């Protein structure tokens, strides 16, 4: 029997997420948000680590991708993941508000975009898109 997360999400071995963010505070908050929904999650600190973890064979139902990161930013990481054939839901999360910047991020291959800070309701709206 799948365990219940605090907000009623079923802790299932099927729902997994990858948090990609160079900011420690955001990683902590996003981890907690996902935890509360019963979603198993891991975090990496830049786009290159996100690509590398997929190269190691891991896949995730959901990727929360920050835009501005050192080494490899979210736009480039998203592009590379899509070129690798990764079809996971990739939701961009960023504090950027300029339309041009957001459009570039979306065109790299995002399924969704949410402005930071990420809240439970924003995360739930992302999850609903995975579940159709």
């Amino acid at each position, binding site marked *: 029997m799948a365990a219940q997360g*605090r907000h009623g999400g079923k802790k299932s071995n099927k729902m997994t997420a990858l948090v990609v963010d160079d900011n420690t*505070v955001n990683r902590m908050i996003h981890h907690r948000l996902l935890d509360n929904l019963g979603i198993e999650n891991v975090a990496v600190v830049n786009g290159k680590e996100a690509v590398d973890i997929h190269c190691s064979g891991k896949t995730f139902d959901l990727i929360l991708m920050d835009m501005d990161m050192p080494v490899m930013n979210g736009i480039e990481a998203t592009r590379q993941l899509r070129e690798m054939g990764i079809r996971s839901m990739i939701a961009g999360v960023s*504090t950027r508000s300029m339309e041009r910047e957001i459009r570039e991020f979306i065109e790299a291959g995002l399924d969704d975009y949410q402005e930071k*800070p990420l*809240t439970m309701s924003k995360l739930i709206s992302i999850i609903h898109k995975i579940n159709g």
Partner: protein
Amino acid sequence: MRRQLQTMRKSLFDQGYLDEQFVQLEELQDDANPNFVEEVVTLYYRDSGRIILNIEQALERKPFDFNKLDAYMHQFKGSSSSIGAKKVKAESTLFREYCRSRNGEGCMRTFQQLKKEYATLRRKLEAYFQLARQAGPVETACRPK
């Protein structure tokens, strides 16, 4: 003591130090993670302290590298926004505007104000968390908005 805590909390919002995002963090706190908010805030002050130092050092170098200053403040603003630090976030926004308009004096003036707000919030939150620890855990259903 609980009433005192509620009053203190309310004043943090009424006086504009905190915004709705802080409430979001409180809603992530539960019996399994009873100190989540304090942990996040502690992490914020630890991490953002480094950024403050970077900005201070960058402001000592002339001419100003406004792109670098803006990049630092983008990071700082992001963290501040994530914990609901409303006044700090507002000063961060202003600083970034001065960076974009290449206004060095504006940057320096705003940065001083930002550091004041940052320190004031830290002091207030430390007092709040100390009182919260003394008051003991609260039932989630009773937590006022």
